[in-house]
């Protein structure tokens, strides 16, 4: 049927809003899976690779979040949800705040690798 109204696709807006949390989730999933599987199957050399890999993944995720925080307009255009309407400042503000929250979460998660020995249970 004819479509009377045009506005940017809602999927883009949702992705934009959730970009920070999605990165946070991806980071958690990546470090957890990597850690669990490496410790389960890799044997002794797991101890050598785990901390470095986790720190690297954390820095990468943090960098991506900082990019998203600094250039929200670019991100919005890339996700095709940029328009001049009244909701735009709202989306941008909310999205940026969410990247800040996610950044805190990512750093918090990754910092464990600096303090704890990998692959042991403290019991």
């Amino acid at each position: 049927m004819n479509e009377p109204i045009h506005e940017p696709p809602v999927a883009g807006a949702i992705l934009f809003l959730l970009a920070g949390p999605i990165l946070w989730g991806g980071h958690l999933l990546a470090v957890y899976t990597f850690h669990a599987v490496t410790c389960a199957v890799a044997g002794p050399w797991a101890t050598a690779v785990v901390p470095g890999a986790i720190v690297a993944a954390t820095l990468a995720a943090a960098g991506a979040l900082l990019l998203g925080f600094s250039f929200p307009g670019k991100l919005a255009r890339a996700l095709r949800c940029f328009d001049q309407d009244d909701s735009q400042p709202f989306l941008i503000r909310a999205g940026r705040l969410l990247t800040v929250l996610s950044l805190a979460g990512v750093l918090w998660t990754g910092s464990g690798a600096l303090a704890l020995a990998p692959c042991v249970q403290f019991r």
Partner: protein
Amino acid sequence: MELPNPDPRPEGEVRELERIWATPRGWRLVTAVNNTVIGLLYIGVAFLFFLMAGLLAVVMRTQLAVGDNRLIDQDLYNQMFTVHGTTMMFLFAVPAVEALGVMLLPQMLAARDLPFPRLSAFAIWAYVVGGLVFFSTIFYDLAPKGGWFMYPPLTLMEYSPGDNADFWLLGIGFIEISAIAGAVEIVVGALRTRPPGMSLARMPIFAWTMLIFASMIMFAFPAVILATMMLEIERAFGWPFFTAAVGGDPLLWQHLFWFFGHPEVYIIFLPAAGLVSMMVPTMARTPLVGYHLIVVALIGTGFFSFGLWVHHMFTTGIPALSLAFFSAASMAVAVPSGIQVFSWIATIAAGRQRFRITTASLFILGFLFIFTLGGLTGVMVAMVPFDHQVHDTYFVVAHFHYVLIGGFVFPLFAAIYYWMPLFSRRMLSERVGRWVFWMMFVGFNVTFLPMHLTGLRGMPRRVWTYPGEMGWDTLNLISTAGTYVLAAGILVFLVDLAAKFRIGNRAVENPWGAGTLEWLPNDVYSTRSIPHITSREPLWDRPSLPQEVRDGHHYLPNAPTGWRETIVTSPIHARPQYVIQMPGPGWPPFLAAVFTAAFFLLLTVKMVAIAVICGVLAIVFVLAWAWGLDPGPSKGMIEIAKGVRLPTYMSGPTSHSWWAMVVLMFVAGSLYLAYVFSYLFLWVVSPEVWAPAGSPAPPPIGWPVASAALLLAGSGILWLVSRKLQQYAASRLAISAALLLSLVCLSAAFMLETGGHLTTGLDPGENAYGAMVYLGAVLFAQLVLALLIMGLFTLARHLAGKLDAVRRVTYDNYALLYHYTVAQSLLGLGLIHGFPRLIG
């Protein structure tokens, strides 16, 4: 602002609206579908479950009052805490939230109803029947005993013989499906039935929380549905998903359960926080401070809550570093919750007038106090070493009652006092309300504060009694006394409710002087006309709005199609797009729900033949109901405001049914991802049973390739049909043949996939690998069955002349699910046939 309909309205429009939206009378009341009617039933039944599960709690507390008590025996106690916990979580909290959504959301959005009224009716009746039967098992010694999280191996057949556990698995699994149906309704409702002008940035916070609530259900519930399926299959047919000796793992259950179970507590809490965010500004008589921050906090909490589930498994022997990830996430999630608490306090402080103290505000203050304490003990148990000390003790029982009762029951009571005038001719008594609040508040703290200490002194949870000399008596006695005070408070509330509650239109229009749309003049048809929105508190910013709305000066002041309808707007800016023609009262949703419930319950007690009959009847009624949908564009364009004409029918990606289908595809997708996770998880745990070394190797590559080719062919055929429908050039015969052919492709692909594994001699009962492979086939089979029904239904519509280039919703739904199934199955073929080759 210029009014959408400035001219005086003709006589008789209101009477017409009243006739169209009239509630059916007498025994036909069960056929009602309007949100205010079924919403009331929904919340009433949910509250009934709260009372019944609360009664069980009183009995349990009486049993625990003194040591060595013999009031009830161990077996009954086990059933009681299981039914109490399960009922509170699945039959009270989640349904109560959905009920509030069904009742309040359309009012807050000034929509005439939610977009799928019959779907809500179906979900509600299924829940009522299924829930009541589940609860009644406690009276026949048939209730489950495994605790509300039903961990295997305790719940496997060897250790839990009888049907008790099956009542949990089938009963609750089925209630979850009803919750998902409600979630579909709420997502589409919040995004598409907002009043013109209510952009996302102007949406009431409660609508935000309901949107987040429903999205969380979409991604969390599938994990536990898969887990319940697996456990039920293991109990019934012996496929060893959770039996460690042959490659299964009980921890898999814990992962799946808590991937649902942790978000579940936020699924309960966020909407409650949304209610508070609606009430606080009214009582403080000032707009909410930090609207943006609250929205961000809600989204953040909802999202982060999916990354915390392992904190329920701190003591299961997972490496410490992994625990640290989840410990960090658990503490990080406290940040957004803190943001909300500070926003509310700031709003209370910001009001130029004093914060108004009503019963509702008392419950809100009580909530702030109790929930904050629960949050603090939450941060404590998020620390791994501390959790090792208090895991499975009464400290945990105290913690989660602080967050659940503080974070949900208190806001719920506040909401009942606050919104009662919308549904009852008389308000509840403010004077009695003070008594109710103080008795509940004191009773609650006297019950649960001492439990922190009983827990620190080592009393485990889930014990039916304890020796008198442990030093736990006094604390337990205090707890029990508190429970009686709490119960008395609730009793006083019930008495007041019985005295005051009378269904009907409100006496006072806007008793609290609130600013949001649910306080507009209302009747069975909701508001007379649907307002144009320019701010977040329209009633404060435009005092003339109620009168304008009542006089029909806003959108859709009448019923131009002569039947139930509401406006659909665009998801971001809420610009009017089209008008939905909605179904009215009818028997099919009610009967379909009753037979669906019967199907699951009869399966539980292994009366398979009658169960199957009921299942078929349920499908028949669903089809009868679906036949009446998709009316087509026969009503043409209508005028909803001066110079604004909208179509009365929509198909394709903008239509509400397309959106519902996409939501369902997300649900199916998360179910499947949970399956992929389980497959890989069991491989990590027990690579020794995996093919090709530990089990028969998968069939030759020709099998999956042929299966994949058939699937792709089916998708291609539907793509062609879609184009033909558009041109409307094809003959009836060609389209019928193509539809049938797509079904043949699908069925053949399924048979090839299953047949291939059968030829290798792989046995699902042998080890976890076989069980996982055949579980993939089971998931495939479910979709095939659904598609067979939908495909034949589409064919029937086509033959009856109810399908064409425009009127094509039935076909679109079938095609969408078909393409989804193809994508999922291709992924599945890759996993099942590729992975063993990869590792082999």
